[in-house]
Structures are given as structure tokens and as C-alpha cells.
């Protein structure tokens, strides 16, 4: 079976059309990627909207994006290693309601740890399904997202879990340290840690190798399936951490939190940043800039008082452009 796939791949590789987009311009564009649009948007908003370039607003954006950035940082590992995780929205919700629910009658610490543990568990299941049973990650995690959403509804019984009686639970997100909320600090710590993992450690190298050419990686002694499984576990844990942080911030949680919108925003951020949906290419700074770019668009719509309906349309269009550019540059490279 492998062999057949291989020969097929060879056949198509050999037959790639001689028509290729020109080199040079595209390479440079791709390397800098999202950076220019981001800076342009940033400057435009600064000039256009007085409240934009203020400490309050900028810190607010970071704080609001804390959970998205955490999840996207982990998602970058998954994508680089050649997988994809569509269950993050559901895991975010399940972890949020689990922690919020437990916070009602245990200590906040236990609730937080339990919430994250739930996410790690779902991530492990995702990873095992994808690696051991060789089920397409797209389908596996999409199916899991339904399972997990259902579990979240079971936990809440369909209601909003409210923790106003347990203000201690809010400390996770709302404690201020050096005028910056802990949720932002946590985000920074996670993003930096995962950036180091991806770019500086052997594990990170193995992720790139697995996503770039799994067979080559395997023959070079990389335990590709183990690496992929690890990225799913990290992704599950990160999604849960995001859910717990947000539940802690608003002292409440419900099963419909996150849903598909979060999954979309996370993926869009990663891909708009320039990390390849096909694996093997990408970087953490790209994800950070990509997520913030999308956040700026949202913030801009708010500040400029534009109809938020168009925001959704704009986001979808931007994602399509990003994926298209990725495919285009691959064609050129091949």
C-alpha cells in the first residue's frame, strides 16, 4: 500500500508542469509573509483611531487574545508535525465547564488542574486515534470535537455554570502583576516555552521533520508517530488551559463556549501567519503575528464602528488568501 502511494507520488512529482510561478518575488514575500500586512494595519489603525494606540487598548487586545494565542501556539506544533486539531474549540469548552463546575465545591487549584488534565486526556485520545489507528487527523479530531462537546453539555446539564460565589477561581486570570493580568503572563510563558520547543529542541526538529517528510524522518530514526502524538497531547492541554483561563476571567462557563468559531480563529491565525497547513513549515512568531493580525481586524471593526457582519466575511477571505499563497509557493518550490 505504501509502495503504491509512493509510486503514485513519484509519478505526479515527475509530471509537474513546467509552468511555475517565478522564483524570487514569491520567496521573499513568503518569508516576510504576514509581517507587512500586520505593520500596515497597525499603523493605519494608530493613525485612524485615537483610542487604538493606547496602553489600555493594546493590553486589552493581548488579554483578550491570551487563550487564542495559547491554543494557536500549540496548534502550530500540530500543524508543523503534519497534523491538524479541529477539536480545540470543544476541548476549550469542556475544560472551561469542568474547571468552573469543580470550582464550585473544591479549591480553585484542583479545579484548574482537573480542567487542564481533561484537555491532556482528550489530546492523548486524539493522538492515539491519529497515530495508532492511522485515521486522518482532520476527520478524527472533527469527530472528537462532537464527542467532547457532548461531554461538556453533560457536565453542565445545558446550563451556564456561574462561579460568582467563588471569586478565588478568578485569580488565575485576573491577578495583576506589573499592571499586566496573569492571563497575559501565562500566555507569554506558554508561547515562549513552545517557541523554544519548536525552534531549539530536538523534539522541535523532529516535528519539522515529521511534517516535512514523514518517511525520511522515520528512516532517520525519528519516532514520527510518537512525535505526532505528543503534539496532539500538547494541543489538548493548551486548549484546556485556554478554556480554564477564560472561565476564570469571567467566572462562568458554558458548553457552547468556543465551538467552531474558536477553532476557526486559531487555525486562521496560524495559517495567516504563514505556517503551512501541509506541515513541515512554520514558526511561532508567525502564529503570534497571525493571531494578532486577526485580532487587530476585529479591534479595528470595533473602534471604527464598522458593521461586524463584514468582519466574518473579511476573515474568511483572508484565510482563503493565506491558504492559496501557501499552495502557490509549494507549487513553485516543487
Amino acid at each position, binding site marked *: 500500500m505504501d509502495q503504491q502511494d509512493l509510486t503514485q507520488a513519484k509519478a505526479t512529482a*515527475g509530471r509537474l508542469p513546467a509552468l511555475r510561478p517565478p522564483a524570487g518575488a514569491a520567496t521573499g514575500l513568503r518569508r516576510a509573509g504576514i509581517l507587512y500586512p500586520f505593520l500596515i494595519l497597525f499603523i493605519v489603525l494608530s493613525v485612524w483611531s485615537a483610542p487604538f494606540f493606547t496602553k489600555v487598548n493594546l493590553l486589552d487586545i493581548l488579554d483578550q487574545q491570551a487563550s487564542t494565542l495559547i491554543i494557536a501556539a500549540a496548534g502550530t506544533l500540530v500543524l508543523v508535525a503534519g497534523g491538524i486539531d479541529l477539536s480545540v474549540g470543544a476541548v476549550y469548552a469542556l475544560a472551561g465547564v469542568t474547571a468552573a463546575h469543580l470550582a464550585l465545591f473544591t479549591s480553585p487549584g484542583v479545579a484548574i488542574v482537573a480542567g487542564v488534565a481533561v484537555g491532556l486526556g482528550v489530546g492523548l485520545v486524539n493522538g492515539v486515534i491519529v497515530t495508532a*489507528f492511522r485515521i486522518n487527523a482532520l476527520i478524527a479530531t472533527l469527530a472528537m470535537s462532537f464527542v467532547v462537546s457532548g461531554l461538556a453539555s453533560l457536565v453542565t446539564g445545558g446550563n451556564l455554570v456561574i462561579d460568582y460565589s467563588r471569586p478565588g477561581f478568578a485569580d488565575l486570570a485576573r491577578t495583576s502583576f506589573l499592571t499586566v493580568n496573569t492571563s497575559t503572563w501565562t500566555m507569554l510563558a506558554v508561547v515562549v516555552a513552545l517557541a523554544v520547543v519548536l525552534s531549539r529542541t*530536538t523534539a522541535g*526538529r523532529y516535528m519539522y521533520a515529521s511534517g*516535512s517528510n514523514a518517511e525520511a524522518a522515520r528512516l532517520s530514526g525519528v*519516532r514520527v508517530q510518537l512525535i505526532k502524538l505528543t503534539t496532539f497531547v500538547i494541543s489538548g492541554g493548551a486548549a484546556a488551559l485556554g478554556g480554564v483561563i477564560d472561565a476564570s476571567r469571567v467566572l462562568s462557563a458554558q458548553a457552547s463556549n468556543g465551538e467552531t468559531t474558536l477553532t476557526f480563529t486559531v487555525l486562521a491565525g496560524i495559517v495567516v501567519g504563514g505556517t503551512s497547513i501541509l506541515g513541515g513549515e512554520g514558526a511561532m512568531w508567525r502564529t503570534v503575528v497571525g493571531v494578532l493580525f486577526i485580532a487587530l481586524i476585529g479591534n479595528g471593526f470595533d473602534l471604527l464602528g464598522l458593521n461586524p457582519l463584514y468582519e466574518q466575511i473579511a476573515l474568511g477571505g483572508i484565510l482563503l488568501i493565506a491558504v492559496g499563497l501557501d499552495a502557490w509557493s509549494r507549487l513553485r518550490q516543487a
Partner: protein
Amino acid sequence: MPQPAAKDTHVELVDISRSFGGVRALDEVSLTIGRGSIHALVGENGAGKSTLGKILAGVIAPDRGQLLIDGEPVTFHSPREAIVRGIVLIAQELSIAPALSVAENVFLGTEPRRAGFVARRALRRRYDELAAAAGFELSGDLPGRGLRTADQQKVEILRALCRNARLIVMDEPTAALSRPDADRLHQVIRRLAAGGTTVVLVSHFLREVAELADQVTILRDGRLVRTAPAADETEETMLNSMLGRSLGTTFPARRPVRPDAPVVLEARGLSAPGVHGVSLDVRAGEIVGLAGLVGSGRSELARALCRAQRVTAGTVTTASGPLAGRPPGGRRLAAVLPGPGPWAALRAGVAMIPESRKEQGLMLGRPIAENVSLASLARLSDLGLVRRRAERQAVTRALGQVGVRVPAQRPGGGAWARRHGRPGQQGRPLGLAAPVSTLSGGNQQKALFARILLRGPRVLVADEPTRGVDVGAKRAIYELLTSLAAEGLGVLLISSDAEEILGLAHRVLVMRAGRIAAEFRGEAMTEAAILGAAFGAADAGPERGA
């Protein structure tokens, strides 16, 4: 033999040039192809023969130069336009729709129709006429699925004929064929030519060219060496012109294996999909050649030895102990849990240069440095953090050992990407950061060797290590293999090139149908012996049951 009398000109190419990204694939090549002749294009990989064939068939357009058909200047913008002028290319990769019958495949897109429905009977009748005219005995009712390569080729030829092809360009038509099938295809080609169809044959097999062609055009580095009647050429003269130097210097001197050299790789009764009960030994410092036809189980054996493929029976033992035949923990569990894979083989000192460097060897989009260090990262890191300076130094050293000069510029800088790159300049790290795909084919292969060198195994299983590389790189790889063996590495060298095996190996194992069919050493190592054993022609013993 029958040298056809002077034929009128069918196609004329005048001063054709074509470059790919700064590399001149064809440089002012002119030649004339006679109607109804078999015209062979020969040359090394990269000499430009395939490019020339593709220009003829409109697949790519020349940068400069003129193409004349029947004396009329033409410019093709697509293969379709070439087909209209009766020129069809049969590529190396065949395209047969598996779900359709042979006849349906032949008439694909040009089916006889009645009111929008395929007229089956008419299709059948026309197929029979066509096949009879071409002299093929191939039933039109056979399904496309499972058709042997030789028969697929017949389908392609018939397809060309039903489109009124008057010139067929065949790119390496016999590369994937067994000897008897190739002979049959030769008859077909002769019959086509006798019927007035012009055949342009792009081929690596000089014997085939000498036997089959009327005219031979020899290319070297994109330039025309000469066009001459095939009757005036021998394999030797063609080879010398292609290489531009005499043979004999091609293989480095073999060093004898020390008599007390230990066995570093031992397989006993090894079975895996496509491999049946193979036993073999490789000793330190020994190069064991593994010959056999494509599909004889050579690559499967290699993959089984390196644990890249499931092993169903038998054992593999290395110097550091048994590399267990079956993953421990029983079968059922092994199906779910990832059993020990190539990493276990590597840990035991068995490394592999895979058959296809693009599919199985390199991470094309990743930097050169990452590709080279991949198998040795554990050694080049502390607590999981890669020591980047140590890595850079180790990679530079390993690349130096295999003779790759790393380009010191960014990609997109022009011709350097395909050539060896310029030495000097301080930009070394930048060069190592360039994607490995910017290296030439030969240097990519050498980068794979650098990966192995850095890892430092005790056994190397090299599967077609010189496939698709130029002569210079080939020679360099031969020297590498020889010097690695001299340093005590055991090498199992798989190659389809009998000369390569004869020139490098201390002894030769020949595989056929998943088994070791014969072993030759010393004087008995001849091309005839290897081929005989591979085809099962020579004193083949009674077949054992599977």
C-alpha cells in the same frame, strides 16, 4: 541491420536552446529526423535528451531556435498542438485508467459515439483493426487494472496511433521492462518504423540503441556531440562521447576485506512482504552487492533489514546484538502500538540510504543543516536543546567529507543553485540554512551520505545510491562507499547498474522473486552471470514453494 535508404526529412530542429533557472539544458542543438526512421537520443542524466523529446512533443517550448515539421516552421504551445501535427510523447510514467478496459483506454477521449453514448461494438471493431494493424496481440477486453508495464506501453502506443501519430517520442520505454518484454517492445518499434511512423527513442540503454536505432544523436551537457548512423556506432564509442573521457577510471580501487573481519550484519531466514527466507552476512569492511530486477525484492529486503518494513519471520543480528525479528509483545499489540522501527535499527548501527531521495530521504523544504543533522541530533544536543554551533560545525565537516561545497548565498541567486555553489565568502551559515532542494541532485544524494557519516553506523544499506546523479557525483559516491568500507563499515549495495556492482562489490548476491538466487565472488562475478541469475536463465534450481 537493414539500413534504410535515404529518407525524406520529417522533422528538423535548428539551433534549439532551452534553459531552466540559469542552467542551459539545451544549447543550440540542431538535428534532422528522417521519416520512418528510429532516431535515438542518448546522453547522461542531464545531457538534455529528455528536454529535447519534450520540445518535440510541445510539452515545453524552446527559448530559441526553430522547429520544422515537413519543412514547415511550427511553434507548439501545448502537447495538444503537437498531437494535431501528429507528434505524440509517451512519457516514462504511463497513464492508464485502471477501471477502463484496454480498448476503452486506447480510445479515451476519441470514442466512437452514437447520440452521446459510446458505440461499444464500433469501439471494439476499431480496436481490433488498430491492434491488428500494429501487430499487437492484446485483448481489448482486459481491464486496465493490473496490466503489465509492457502491455500498458502497448496501450499508449495504440493510443498514439489512433490519434494518427506520425512521430512517437518514447522516453525510456524499456526502463521498467524485463528483458523479454523489452525485446517484444523492440519488435513493435521496428514494425512502427517499417510502417512509416517515425520513432524518437530517448534511452539510457546503449545496447538497445545500437540494436534498434537507425540514427543516433549523442548529447553532452546540453550540446550536440554528433548525429551518426547507428551502424557506425558501438556502445563504446557512444559512451566515450557521452562522457567526454575514457572509462576505466570510473571505479576506485577495491580494498580486500581482512580475513578476520567480524560479521556486522547477519540475516537468517528473513521473511517480509516480498522477501522469502533470505539469509546473508555482511562483514566489516565488505561491500556486498545486491543485484536483481526491479521487483525482485531488493528494496523490500533492504527495508526489512532496517526495520522499515514489518518482518514476518527470521532474525537480523548486528554486532551489538539481535535486532529481533518480530516486535516484542506479540502480534496483536504490535499492530496497534508502534513497534520498533528504523530508530531501533539505527541504534544498533544499521543505517540506510533509501531508494528515492525525494520521497524517503530528504525534507526538501528544510534547510541543508537540518537534513544532515537529523539522524544525529541526540548527540548534538544537551537536555533536548540543540547545540547549534556544534551542529553547524558537525554538518560543515560532514558535508566537507562528502565533497559538498555549500553555497554561500541566498536562494534565487541564479545558477549557483544547480551547480556546486561558490566557495569562500563568510556566509557559510546562511548557505547551510538554504533549503536542501536548492542543491543539485548529486549534492542532495551526497547530503544524505553526510547524514549517515555524521551518525556513524556500522552497517550501511544503500539502495540505488547513484540513481539520478551526474557522473561526477557518481564517482564521488563510489569513492565514499569504498573509503567507508575501508574504515570498517559493512556495506550492502543495491543497484540496478551491474557495472556499478561489479566495480565496487567484493561479492554479489542476486535476488529473484524474493529469494537470493545466486552468489558470485571473484572471477565468477560477471555481468552475464548476474543477469543470468536475475532472469532465472542460468542453472536455476527447482523453485521452492512459497
